[in-house]
């Protein structure tokens, strides 16, 4: 499977994007991870108190 990923012909634009974007997205990734940890810490206060009842009661009519 890995070799197929490599098979796509890289365009100049794509190569540049990958190189340039790497440092920025790594920083973004760490920030997102920290935010996710914070969210998990607080999420039980945000989640519906009885998840099972909530999910069970969530019934919609079909639409378009």
């Amino acid at each position, binding site marked *: 499977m890995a070799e197929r990923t490599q098979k796509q012909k890289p365009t100049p634009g*794509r190569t540049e*994007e990958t190189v340039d974007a790497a440092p920025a997205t790594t920083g973004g990734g760490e920030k997102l991870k920290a935010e*996710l940890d914070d969210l998990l810490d607080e999420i039980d206060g*945000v989640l*519906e108190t009885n998840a099972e009842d909530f*999910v069970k009661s969530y*019934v919609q009519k*079909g639409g*378009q």
Partner: protein
Amino acid sequence: MAIPKVCGIETEYGILVRGTDSNPVSASSLLINAYLAANHRKVGWDFDDEHPGSDARGFSVDDLLAPAIETHLVNAVLTNGARYYVDHAHPEISTPECLTARDALVFDRAAEEIVWASMQAATALLPEGAEILCHKNNSDGKGNSYGCHENYLVAREVPFGRIVHQITPHFVTRQVVIGAGKVGCELPGVSTADQPFQLSQRADFFEEEVGLETTLKRPIVNTRDEPHCDPTKYRRLHVIVGDANMSETATLVKLGATSILLAMIEDDVLGDDLTLANPVTAIRQVSHDVTLQRLVLLRTGRRATALEIQWELLERAQKYERSHGLAAVGHEVGSEVLRLWEGILAGLERDPDSVAHQVDWVAKRRLVQAYADRHGLKPGDARLKALDLQYHDLRRDKCLARRVGLDVITTEAEVRHAMTNPPDTTRAYFRGRCLAKWPDQIVAANWDSMVFDIGRDPLQRVPMMEPLRGTAATVASLIDESDTPAELLARLGA
């Protein structure tokens, strides 16, 4: 040359009342009426020109199975040019016609804010302890789906068959970019243990390649031929195959990339070689494969991943930008969309988590997985489905999408402005401004006309068959300078 890709988005919201008995139709009516009572004088929708049974393939089924138009339900036009109504037991907002994908994003965000304001106004009318909840999602997890439809203006002269063949590969594979993510699966016989998570809310519900239906046997390309403008010049491509996005970037790329590809189809430069052997099978394969590695079969016999097909579409779009320019979608917005689209594909290829700030399914999956890991939950645990539902909850304090670090690319000021003011650059400007200025003298309005009561018989119908006439540039001063609709109509006639 491709014509301007005027576009819009219409979203049916999930609705739930807690703490008192209610049914979804009356809850939706209450929701909308509460908003209108607090913010608007109500102007009704005019159904005279609606023909949802007309089929782009050249026949009409008005007498057979035309989707029912529920004329007795709440149906209003807002001063931002949008339509706010009850459709199939859901509240629905159709944005006004927008000249660019970015405008449509702003009006889609404004629609969310309108629904949130409606929830607060309606809850205030309910007994103590009861509340009304809305979700911007597309399924209840129990096999019931409701839509988020896109609309694009396309030149009538483009053969419909070309549109179907050439846009379908995008509709099947764009899920990797714009899927809103779903815990579980709603195909009969597939359990959550078999399919704990998938990319799209909607993919499980598509059973045909092409067709007129929207509520059952849903087709990947919908053939409703109801342009709401001059039918000799235009089509409105009615797209029912997308998810409702919480990510603003996803909404922008969804509308922008599709607009660019449709412009390319108009200019006949996209090509037929990406046609899929079996789009209905493929749309599910793509949605069900969170590894992004599964190959789908093309009609040529070639196999490719959804990501590879997206790369090819993007590269052709980039080439089109260089050869033809992006005037049809707006140069600046078009370039921004191509840049975002490329960044997302590169991120998905490298490490999907790197685009958790842009791609809904990635953001949701990350959250669900992290929560399951922390609490040792197995697939099928109700708490994981609750996270999925709550990702789309429009209550500010409960909405998980607001907490996962999604990029915000609109400003609060422009979204607030769009709640009550129309876009400047389409005919929605005329509709919205007239409604704001003369609510009592407008008897009815719809996409392509308005009916004025100027105080004497007969009522005056103003046809608006051109989506790009009636803009601020041409009618702002006429509306400003007219004290009455009669004056305005006299000036328009002059």
